[in-house]
């Protein structure tokens, strides 16, 4: 039987750094539950930034016009069941390393608009999408940044049609964090 797959986008910026521990813990937790973890360390990948040209919508539908690893990232993401963003919380949002991968996921949705709730969003291109888990690494607890980060993860889950979305934090000063990575991962898997 093929193992269920989680795709982890590691947005850590420094070598030997900030996100390595959170990534390792996530991989361990997944493997213990029999899942396969597909880790992409974005700082090691030469991903060109999205050009905002919309070619992936109107010229080469579903495929980014830039022929680089960005295409493969999109493919690996949509083929997974859980998508995990691991990032140093950067002004409340994602690091530039994580964001360069996230911006290249636009081909996964259609240009057409529809209502999602009372808001206008793009229509899904694929039948299923992965659930989204955002893991933010912070030097210490910060209520304001955490609120922005949670909201960003929730907003992303709407735009990428994720069936489920959760966010949690890891503090570099050792402050205890609740929920833990294990707790949110269990929730996403069990739902």
């Amino acid at each position, binding site marked *: 039987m093929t193992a269920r797959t989680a795709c982890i986008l590691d947005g850590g910026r420094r070598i030997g750094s900030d996100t390595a521990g959170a990534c390792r813990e996530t991989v361990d937790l997944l493997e213990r539950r029999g899942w396969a973890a597909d880790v992409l360390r974005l700082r090691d990948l030469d991903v060109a930034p999205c050009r905002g040209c919309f070619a992936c919508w109107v010229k080469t539908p579903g495929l980014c016009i830039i022929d680089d690893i960005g295409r493969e990232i999109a493919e690996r993401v949509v083929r997974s069941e859980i998508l995990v963003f691991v990032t140093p919380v950067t*002004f409340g949002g994602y690091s530039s390393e994580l964001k360069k991968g996230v911006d290249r996921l636009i081909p996964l949705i259609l240009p057409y608009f529809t209502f999602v709730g009372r808001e206008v969003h793009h229509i899904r291109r694929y039948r299923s999408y992965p659930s989204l888990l955002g893991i933010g690494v912070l030097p210490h607890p910060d209520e304001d940044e955490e609120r922005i980060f949670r909201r960003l993860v929730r*907003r992303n889950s709407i735009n990428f049609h994720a069936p489920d979305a959760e966010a949690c934090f890891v503090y570099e000063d050792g402050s205890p964090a609740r929920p833990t990575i294990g707790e949110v991962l269990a929730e996403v898997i069990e739902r």
Partner: protein
Amino acid sequence: MTKHVLVLVGSPRGLEVSTSGRYACALTERFELEGWSTESIDLHRAAFLQGEGDEFVSKAGLADLILLVAPLYVDSLPAPTIRALERIAEGRAERDPEAPSTRLAALVHCGFVEPKQNETAIEICRRFASAAGFEWFGGLMLGGGGMPSRRAARALREAGDALARGFPIPPGARKRAGRPMMPSLLYILGGNLMWRRAAKKHGVSKDDLLGAPYS
């Protein structure tokens, strides 16, 4: 002494042809009349340049006001814009706390009809201001994919006037910009027609446009 405004444009389409560039021009019109000197930087290019590309980091600390204008990319700012902001914040880690503070205001615009969808990105700009030691002078959100609108033009004029006179973006301008420019259903119908036409121009049929290459 002449005051200086530094305009950071975050669109990958550059200063001349992008919606961000157009909005930046509208915002800074008043500054020239009030005698400010202005300089615009294409962040998409600058963020990935080394050496001379670092100039924007020092320029940011020397300006009286920074105007950050960027499109919404996946609920946030585009990656190169975030990269540039990271570099500015890191470059200012050792700043002189006695130095006169630079103010920062931001405009984020999106292709959805609801300007409110830019809220998270504006919050990120506010947090950047705080991290880099800039004084937050407010954020403006525009929707509608850059479609011309009298209300948006007025909001930009009001915001530009206030900033050029040394005041934060006024609540009236924020409120005006924050209202959708048309009913959502009309936007959906018009937008979908526009996408279909754009695909047709590239020889992409209605069915091919729905292609799912990774199925």
